[in-house]
């Protein structure tokens, strides 16, 4: 059990390194994808390993997921306005 925490910690540090290194590579518009992709992966590892989302009671998944799922509503419906405005992006 303890070894899985250590392994997760190492993976998290490696992912951090990946994110930092990728920042200096000329990958253009892929930057946000890589940086946030890494962050989301790291959060998933923290949730499942350190916060033991997989252990009972199972309803925890619903609560954990609900927050992120609801954020999608804000992001998607919110960005639709901006993306369909004329003259966007302004800068």
């Amino acid at each position, binding site marked *: 059990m303890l070894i899985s925490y250590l392994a997760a910690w190492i993976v998290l540090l490696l992912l951090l390194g990946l994110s930092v290194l990728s920042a200096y590579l000329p990958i253009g518009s892929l930057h946000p994808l890589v940086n946030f992709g890494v962050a989301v992966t790291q959060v998933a590892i923290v949730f499942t390993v350190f916060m033991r989302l997989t252990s009972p009671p199972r*309803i925890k998944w619903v609560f954990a997921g609900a927050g992120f799922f609801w954020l999608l509503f*804000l992001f998607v419906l919110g960005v639709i*306005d901006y993306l369909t405005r004329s003259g966007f992006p*302004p800068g």
Partner: protein
Amino acid sequence: MSAITADLPPSYLTHEFTLRSWLLSTDHKRIALLFFASITFFFFVGGFAATLIRLHLINPSTHLLQPDTYNRMFTMHGIVMVWFFLIPSIPTTLGNFLIPLMLGARDLAFPRLNLGSWYLFNVSGLLAIYFLVAGGVDTGWTFYTPFSTLFSNGHVIAAAVAVFVNGFSSIATGLNFVVTIHRLRAPGLTWFRLPLFVWAIYATSVIMLLATPVLAMTLALVAVERWLGVGVFDPSLGGDPLLFQHMFWFYSHPAVYIMILPAMGVVSELVTCFARRPVFGYSGMTYAMIAIAVIGFFVWGHHMFVAGISTFSAIVFSLMSFVVAVPSAIKVFNWTATLHRGSISFEAPMLYALGFIGLFTIGGLTGLMLATLDIDIHVTDTYFVIAHFHYIMVGGTVSAFFGGLHFWWPKITGRLYSEACARGAAILTFLGFNLTFFPQFILGYLGMPRRSYTYPPDFQVWNVLSSAGASILAVAYLMPLFYFAWSAFRGERAGPNPWRATGLEWRTSSPPPERNFERTPVVTCPPYQYDPVDGSYVAQDGVANA
């Protein structure tokens, strides 16, 4: 206190009489009464502001209030009524008192958090009183930027902090209810045997938990911008005032569902009991409430149709707003179907419930009109909108709140109230309400803008009618103070189940003992097992005509 409980059996009221035992109580029933005191106070603060507004609007030229004062009055009315009365009303009073009883539990999952929620509410209330007394805010309850952040000379930061802290109280209450309903149901009480009031509180709590944090961050950003003089909504930096509106309404639209869902739960309890019929379409009712809670998060842009959002996005929000009306309509159909061929009696709670159904329907239909883009362009920011939301929040929520108060009064206090006085108050409420707010639909249609301290003389007759109605409504709302007070001291003793209702809360004494039930109930029946033919019923623990 001893005068009130003199001839009552031992109960949560007689458990201990010290002030300390009330102020540090973790008993959900006492905390419900503590909240009741707090929200009643704020109801009168908000009502005071409304009184001044309606007095001022009787005459467009003899300005009772200075224009700036008028702005602060409608802002105070909105902030206080929304966050310090309507949102907490049913959940923290009836919800707190009844949820453990309806579940067959001894208390909520986190009793100390419940007490903490009351103290947080009071801290936010004190902050609110501070900024109101210090001179108020003139931004409207909606705090639109850049006026609120850069140009208003009101106490915006104090108001934002007060509402921010109030949000913690909301979140604490919602958290408690969600965990309690998941974990503390009595044996045999499956999800689809829960009374609809419990489902309603659950759906409300989900909204409270997921929407309030967004408001908190939005107000924090407003406070930061006002304090620093620069911010993310500031157009001179390239910020977008509409970003504030998106974030604000992402919370504030679901907030109106926080205000109406508990009322719908109450109405379901009242209609079934006083029509002596099981609810029509129980699962439809539960799915409808869940649908309202979820879809309610998709519609916020309908507050921004003329603010500058893209036409495409306006169409999306308009469509979503039509969709969210469907589950509400289903509920109205199902209540009506429950009444059909029922054995209906017109006690005060039923009068309030029937009033709710009619007034909510009008409010809902006018909401559909507002969701229609072509109509909204003409009536947005007019009295049409004001009438619409008052039909829902006052005609709807406040009616249901009063109905619930009357229904559960015997359970809470162990005494009966004067049915004649209560029926009179209910009817007066209905008449006063319609006289107050129906003219406002006409005013909005004619073009009178909201939040305006004056108006063209042509509109005066409707304004006078509305103010006259408000005076009747005020009397109707004050009447319960008197007959409830009389009931508390001199009312006839109530038995455990004066209404012959089926919920678990009626299977214990009135008022309940401190630990709620002598023995944990075991549930064997779905709710609302009434027989309209002879009025007999089976309570949820299987006991007939208990």
